């Protein structure tokens, strides 16, 4: 059961990352005459955004469902729950910042 679940997760991860890598390669190709470093830079930026978004998605799913559980019994905890949801969402922003830093260096 767990092995099956892990396989599903890995397949989903692969399917999510595949287009971002493809898009990065396409960008490098259209830039024309870019160096090898630029190609890897674009790919790294794509992976940083894709993986961090995926991580944020998982975190928001977990924190969100737990928040819903707590809020159904203690609605007054909504403020605190939002803080933790924000922290989870922050993971995607870290990836975006890293991607911007990489792109700025190219």
């Amino acid at each position, binding site marked *: 059961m767990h092995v099956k*679940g892990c396989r599903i997760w890995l397949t989903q991860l692969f399917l999510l990352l595949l287009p971002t890598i493809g898009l990065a390669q396409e960008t490098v190709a259209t830039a024309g005459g870019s160096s090898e470093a630029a190609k890897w830079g674009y790919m790294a930026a794509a992976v940083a955004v894709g993986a961090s978004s995926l991580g944020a998605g998982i975190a928001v799913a*977990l924190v969100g*469902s*737990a928040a819903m*559980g*707590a*809020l*159904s*019994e203690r609605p007054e*905890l909504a403020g605190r729950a939002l803080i933790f949801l924000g922290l989870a969402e922050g993971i995607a922003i870290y990836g975006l910042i890293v991607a911007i830093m990489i792109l700025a260096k190219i």
Partner: protein
Amino acid sequence: MLLAAAGYGYPNAKIRALRSRRLTEQDRHFLLAAKDLASCLFYLATSSYAPCLPVLEKGTPELAFLERQLARPLMDHYAKVVRSLPGAKERELILALFSRFEAENLKLILRSLFADLSRERVCHLLYPLGPLSDLDWDLFWSCRSIPELITRLRANIFGRSLQHALAQFEAQGRLFPLEMALDFSCFRILRQAAAALTRRYDLAVTENILTSYIDHLNISWVIRLKVEYGLAAEEIVNYTLPGGKLISLDCLNRLSRVEGLADFIAQLPVVFQAELSALRDWGGIRPALEAYLLKVLARIFAGQPFHLGIGVAYLLEKELELANLITLLQAKARNLSVAEISSALPRQFTEG
């Protein structure tokens, strides 16, 4: 861990939120200090038990009726925990734990049939089971005799256990064998449900809780059957549950044979000796054992959060809180002093 968090994130948060609405240290302090039952109930109306209390302005309600009304939140919480769990096997375990209340209601029907009391006279003593119970209670109440009730129940595990105990009931002319058969069948369902769990961590934690609970019950039952009922040692051992954590069958044999309290405590495993060594009378055993069980249950909430044990531990904790609240209300109704009431309650209830 990620899969466990995905499965148990919601129930864990919900159960902890439910747990946060237990009686606080301040609540318990004021309840203990209340001058009589009416003051106790008025204070209780400011707690999480408020929705299940009857209108107090009309006068203090009958205590037996009140006891069952106070069980309403516990029944609701069972339903909430069952709904929040991710898998059928996990839900089965909680329903197996819940079947103890169905057994209590069946005992009441048996007693009413035995004493020839009408449904109207005893129905206020029934646990308000709600939609979690799928037994046909109207059908059971329509029975005219105990064998007829057992025949109607034959499709489920309660009926089969009662069928086995029917001969003993007829030979002895008392309900005790039937009542014990119902208790045994509950724990059989519970052990089967625990054994069917697929996650190893769920199984380990649940086994730890259930075996500790069985130890607690076995010690309490040995004392009750020995001191209150005066049964023979062999009979006492027959009426104990198999599969305790620290209390083996040998230990139960020895416990059922010793006479004084000091010898009884000396025969217990070291963990229990440490908890009970200061006791001077049999009456102090129950609160001391409950204090130990509450300690075991509280430890479940301190470790890894994503498992079924959180739900099982919470529901048992809530059940003990309810039992202690009822003890406190009964003591207040009898105008006992704070010191006398405190001695009948586990130290977590009196000290916080």
